């Protein structure tokens, strides 16, 4: 019996708990009744210094712990018993929330008291009840743990949404390049000759040697391919000093970067060796072979296949292998940003190979030209389904003859390229924004004219259609042409107030699908009934926001995350909003990628329509948080442009 049930006996609220909660975030936001209810479920426990309260992967978590007095350390222990200290928590701080919210109810870390510690324990039911009923509390925990939580959400996405296919844990995203390097760097003096280099490589069974000068400073690298192509094939004297054929300056990568980055860099540069640098010193070499050993279904294999193709038709089946490669990356814990970069790199290589072969077939172009990619491809944010958005830019012809030659050549090039791209499985653009359309094959003055018209006489509809053009980048050919067009925009757009205002209005078009009570709104009818359009409702507002402010501030970057980072670094975006935005955007991209990958594996054409009922509670919660960020971004735009609620 509770004393409170008797008349005249004071209904007892445990004041010490109430008092404490009312001064502790986020509980101080709760109304008096909720607070009293919570306080009455409280259990007070004491843990002498050195008590292990949670044991990682062993302790069932039945309570949320709030530290009243004392302190704990939080640490991880790996299989080898190596301890990684994660955090210290003191008075007013908590632990145990994550396993409860996550629903695993299993300690994910070790928690040990570092002094005599009193804790308020709240049963997990009471804590969950609070999370469900109080948006402010939910917000607080999601926010303060968003880093951890988003990671967990990713882990859940990986586990729940994908049937496990590969058991072997691969290290592409965890292994640092410094860990892969074995032994001291193998070097040879710059004055030594190539024969000595070849002998030493044979002796050591390695494919490359670093080259040092008199001061023992490493200045370059020589590989077995150099010996083959630059020495033997070229008939060079074997007494030639290695300094004459070495690759210099040396391409390096910091030792703390993960192997994924090394792979990406090697693919970008089309090289097979990277020197690993640690605090200014070269500690060794990492090769494509090292990475392939780490990797089963490797993007590198695909990459090699692409660059080795001798016919355009040979490229057709390769583009379809991209999803399988991407799947491996997702299984290994790649974040969406890495994945879209990888898809972009692979697609860029396919395009590069395709156009190289096509130009070989057609003969050299009459004028320097540049193949532009736009939209998501231009922003390096491609996922599995990417309609073609491309165009052709060429140098201004000097006379009529040159102009006619150019039109003839680029018409053939544009039309053939688009046919081949369709053959590779890239769907044509429904709006015909492709290099096969004469409108989008223009000399540089033609393009300036287009941009001038969009900027000077902005019509709302035209602004909407033109946005993807502002995300152009060079994918093949003479990149300086694209660069000069970019510089033209960077100089001119920031002054175009009316254009920017239209762009701002356009960025407010997509309303986040949250009702007043922040429940998810799904499409009520049509083909995608009960589904949520992740692209237009979720991702587009982030892209629009980043584009608007990048253009406004004359930032030449295209990638949405890149734009956001520069906006933040230049002080146009608060740290808080920046980090929220990045997390939300990455989560949405990840959600979309996995959704699409799943559809591909079920032999359905991938789309952007997600049914929220298929999501876990945590994913739904995180999704709502992401849409809340959209709302904040849009209100930022409204403030900046003094636009009311439309």
């Amino acid at each position, binding site marked *: 019996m509770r004393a409170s049930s008797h008349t005249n006996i004071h209904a*007892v609220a445990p004041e010490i708990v109430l008092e404490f909660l009312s001064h502790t975030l986020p509980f101080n936001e709760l109304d008096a009744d909720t607070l009293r209810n919570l306080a009455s479920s409280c259990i007070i426990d004491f843990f002498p210094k050195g008590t292990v309260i949670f044991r990682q992967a062993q302790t069932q978590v039945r309570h949320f712990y709030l530290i009243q007095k004392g302190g704990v350390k939080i640490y991880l222990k790996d299989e080898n018993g190596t301890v990684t200290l994660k955090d210290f928590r003191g008075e007013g701080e908590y632990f145990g929330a994550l396993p409860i919210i996550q629903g695993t109810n299993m300690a994910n870390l070790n928690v040990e008291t570092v002094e005599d510690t*009193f804790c308020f324990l709240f049963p997990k039911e009471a804590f969950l009840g609070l999370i469900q009923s109080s948006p402010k509390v939910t917000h607080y925990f999601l926010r303060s743990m968003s880093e951890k939580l988003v990671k967990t959400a990713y882990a859940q996405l990986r586990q729940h949404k994908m049937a496990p296919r590969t058991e072997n844990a691969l290290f592409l995203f965890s292994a640092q390049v410094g860990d892969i390097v074995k032994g001291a760097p193998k070097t040879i003096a710059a004055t030594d000759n190539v024969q000595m280099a070849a002998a030493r490589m044979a002796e050591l069974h390695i494919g490359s040697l670093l080259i040092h000068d008199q001061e023992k400073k490493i200045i370059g690298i020589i590989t077995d391919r150099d010996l083959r192509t630059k020495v033997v094939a070229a008939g060079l004297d074997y007494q030639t000093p290695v300094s004459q054929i070495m690759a210099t300056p040396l391409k390096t990568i910091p030792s703390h970067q993960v192997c994924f980055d090394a792979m990406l860099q090697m693919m970008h540069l089309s090289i097979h060796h990277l020197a690993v640098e640690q605090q200014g010193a070269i500690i060794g070499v990492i090769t494509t072979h090292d990475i392939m050993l780490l990797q089963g279904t490797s993007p590198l294999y695909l990459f090699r296949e692409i660059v080795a193709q001798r016919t355009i038709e040979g490229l057709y089946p390769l583009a379809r292998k991209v999803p399988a490669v991407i799947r491996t990356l997702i299984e290994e814990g790649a974040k969406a940003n890495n994945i879209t970069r990888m898809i972009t790199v692979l697609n860029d290589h396919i395009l590069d190979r395709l156009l190289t072969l096509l130009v070989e077939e057609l003969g050299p172009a009459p004028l320097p030209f540049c193949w532009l990619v736009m939209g998501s491809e231009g922003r390096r944010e491609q996922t599995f389904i990417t309609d073609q958005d491309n165009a052709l830019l060429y140098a201004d012809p000097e006379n009529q003859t040159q102009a006619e030659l150019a039109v003839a050549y680029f018409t053939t090039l544009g039309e053939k390229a688009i046919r081949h791209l369709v053959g590779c499985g890239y769907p044509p653009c429904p709006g015909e924004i492709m290099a096969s359309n004469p409108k989008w094959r223009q000399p540089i003055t033609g393009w300036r004219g287009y941009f001038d018209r969009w900027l000077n006489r902005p019509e709302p509809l035209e602004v909407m259609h033109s946005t993807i053009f502002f995300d152009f980048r060079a994918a093949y050919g003479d990149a300086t042409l694209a660069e000069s067009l970019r510089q033209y925009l960077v100089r001119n757009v920031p002054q175009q107030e009316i254009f920017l205002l239209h762009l701002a209005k356009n960025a407010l078009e997509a309303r986040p699908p949250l009702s007043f009570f922040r429940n998810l709104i799904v499409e009520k009818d049509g083909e995608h009934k009960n589904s949520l359009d992740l692209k237009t409702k979720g991702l587009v507002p982030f892209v629009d926001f980043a584009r608007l402010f990048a253009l406004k501030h004359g930032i030449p970057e295209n990638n949405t995350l890149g734009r956001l980072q520069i906006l933040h670094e230049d002080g146009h975006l608060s740290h808080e909003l920046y980090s929220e935005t990045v997390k939300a955007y990455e989560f949405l991209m990840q959600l979309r990628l996995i959704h699409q990958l799943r559809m591909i594996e079920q032999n359905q054409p991938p789309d952007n329509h997600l049914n929220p009922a298929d999501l876990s509670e945590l994913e739904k919660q995180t999704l709502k948080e992401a849409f809340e960020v959209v709302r904040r971004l849009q209100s930022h735009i409204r403030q900046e442009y003094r636009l009311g609620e439309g």
Partner: protein
Amino acid sequence: MSFFSISELFRPTHPMFAENKHYFKTLDQFQPVEEYEFVVLDTELTGLHERQDEIVSIGAVRIKNMQILAGETFYAHVKPEKPLPKNSTLIHRITPQQLESAPPLHEVLPNFIYYCGKALLVGHFVDLDIAFLNRACRHLFGSPLHNPCVDTLRLAQIHLERFGVPYRNKIDGGHSFNLTELCRQYGLPAFVPHDALQDALQTAYLFLFLIKKFQGEGYRTMREIFRAGQGSRWAL
């Protein structure tokens, strides 16, 4: 035979008391201490004279599995039979008006006895509280409380004899076993003194602290903890 035993002949013992008497006679003292349920109590009195002074409030909190259940507290004001002496209000902050509207002890006590149930009772210098409660129980129910009592003051003394007090917390002129001072020495969260519930909670914190410190030294069962004091003059 004492006076109270004679009175028991004429007044039938309340059934709950009889049941508790039997229960506690057979209580196994060799269980680990967290197996027992405790009620930590404190009373505020009009004065210290058992014969003439009265209880004006009772505060108590339950401990199960060596954890304080903050939601299962007991707190009641009691209307004394005699008017409140002026000086006592200065200590426990209960105004005569508050007590005027409070129920008398014979209404509060059954609820409190029921609340205690089969728990072991804990208090700081618990003998004093028990003396006042037992006088009322004998009078009303024909029997004293049979619940075994644990005194945190004695536990603290045993702890001091055995393990000492951290140097930094020592105060000049020896040790005080006053509740507030003890808790300060041990670095426990502080409560507002001289409120029955606050003092009960403070005592509960002290009890939890001391018991777990004993457990850390290898004393696991109720019996072992009480035996820890044997061989010293503070044997229980």
